[in-house]
């Protein structure tokens, strides 16, 4: 992507009177770090980047913004928020529209066609982080890693993130401004992660998740990063009634993770952020992708494609599958 064009566009957008700020990506403080950027002026816009390291889904910030109590007489700031989205991120925006989490005219969506992101863990393992800033760029058939001035060409297969291997929507599905030309889509890979669990027997699956969920420290990073976990007051935090105890143990951790996965069924747009941020390395993506697959295969529904769609969990079809009913 042409960074000059990106920065120029961003500067124009933030200069608009009806735009409050723009959320994009900028370089972090060292190594491969990329940070979210909240841009309000041209100077800030000059810092924006779009690279294979911009894996984070910024749409979560749309609903994270706190609506603090306003002093009497003060009008709320209703200006638009501009947001840079990849294909997957754009589905989160669409799903938020379906759920009325945001309003269409409350956002300016800047679409970034995405050739695929890098798996940070793989990258850092092979090419350890440096003190100074490193860069990664797309090449025709892979990535170019630049560390301390040293350039290394890497094949796409070597470093492509799992969610991008499985990706079916690399181009933003909703946007007000599209940066650059759409990328060519690719054949999504088989979901080996889900299959690995699927092919175990029921006890094997329980044992697998028992091990995983036992590691959960209930930091709620998964919930915080998820663009679709945006209830101000999550039921899993409540005491009356208590759905899940706060105690960190296998039973409560499992209940928490089942509840979260269920709440995301038919809503998750597979951006993979939960799994990426999990400090305990729980493969949460498998859980959510499995549900997304069931919803797609059995119910013929995919969230985040159509802002006018009926929400999956608030609709039914008379011929929904019922082979499980006695």
């Amino acid at each position, binding site marked *: 992507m042409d960074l000059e064009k990106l920065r120029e566009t961003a500067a124009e957008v933030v200069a608009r009177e009806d735009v409050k700020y723009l959320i994009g990506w900028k370089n972090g403080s060292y190594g491969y770090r990329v940070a979210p950027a909240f841009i309000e002026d041209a100077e800030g816009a000059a810092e924006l980047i779009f690279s294979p390291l911009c894996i984070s889904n910024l749409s979560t910030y749309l609903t994270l913004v706190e609506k603090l109590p306003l002093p009497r007489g003060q009008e709320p700031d209703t200006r638009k928020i501009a947001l840079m989205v990849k294909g997957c991120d754009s589905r989160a925006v669409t799903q938020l529209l379906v759920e009325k989490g945001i309003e269409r005219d409350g956002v300016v969506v800047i679409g970034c066609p995405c050739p695929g992101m890098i798996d940070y863990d793989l990258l850092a393992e092979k090419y350890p982080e440096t003190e100074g800033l490193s860069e990664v760029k797309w090449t025709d058939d892979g990535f170019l890693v630049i560390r301390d001035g040293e350039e290394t060409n890497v094949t796409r297969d070597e470093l492509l993130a799992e969610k991008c291997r499985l990706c079916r929507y690399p181009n933003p599905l909703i946007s007000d401004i599209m940066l650059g030309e759409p990328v060519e889509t690719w054949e999504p890979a088989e979901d080996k992660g889900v299959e690995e669990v699927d092919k175990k027997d029921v006890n094997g699956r329980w044992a697998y998740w028992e091990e995983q969920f036992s590691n959960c420290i209930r930091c709620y990073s998964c919930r915080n990063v998820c663009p679709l976990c945006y209830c101000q007051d999550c039921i899993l935090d409540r005491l009356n009634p208590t759905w899940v105890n706060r105690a960190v143990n296998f039973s409560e951790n499992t*209940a928490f993770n089942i509840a979260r996965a269920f709440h995301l069924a038919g809503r998750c747009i597979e951006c993979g952020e939960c799994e990426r941020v999990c400090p305990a390395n729980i493969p949460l993506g498998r859980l959510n992708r499995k549900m997304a697959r069931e919803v797609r295969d059995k119910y013929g529904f995919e969230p985040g494609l159509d802002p006018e769609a009926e929400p999956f969990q608030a609709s039914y079809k008379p011929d929904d599958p019922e082979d499980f009913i006695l």
Partner: protein
Amino acid sequence: MSANNEPNIVAFLCNWCSYAGADLAGTSRVHYPSNVQVIRVMCTGRVNPLYVMNALQQGADGVLVSGCHPGDCHYMEGNYYARRRLGMLKDLMEFVGVDPRRFHMSWVSASEGHKWKEVVEKTVEDAREAGSFEGFRRRQIDW
């Protein structure tokens, strides 16, 4: 599971069809196992799928949700919503490794006292085969 090795089952029944069907089984003096404890709700649409998880966590070895046949819901559509939600939950639970024999859903109408007996028997038998679900129990259960 209790000392006599019997599975403990919680059932959520809609008021209009399945609860009435279970009442009819009583009026008809149809005998069936006593392991199933019924919680009455107005409609299966009321059954939050997380109740199933919660029941298994809080001492149940099996859970049953039963409502009106499709098209017969007293509230027109509640059982359709329930079917979708609970179907999803069943898939999720199976993927997590909860024995599918621990959760059943059925359609039992107000006139199907005998079907209610069959559903209870099947649910109990399946839960018995699946065994106690101590592994998932909440450490301390208060009410």
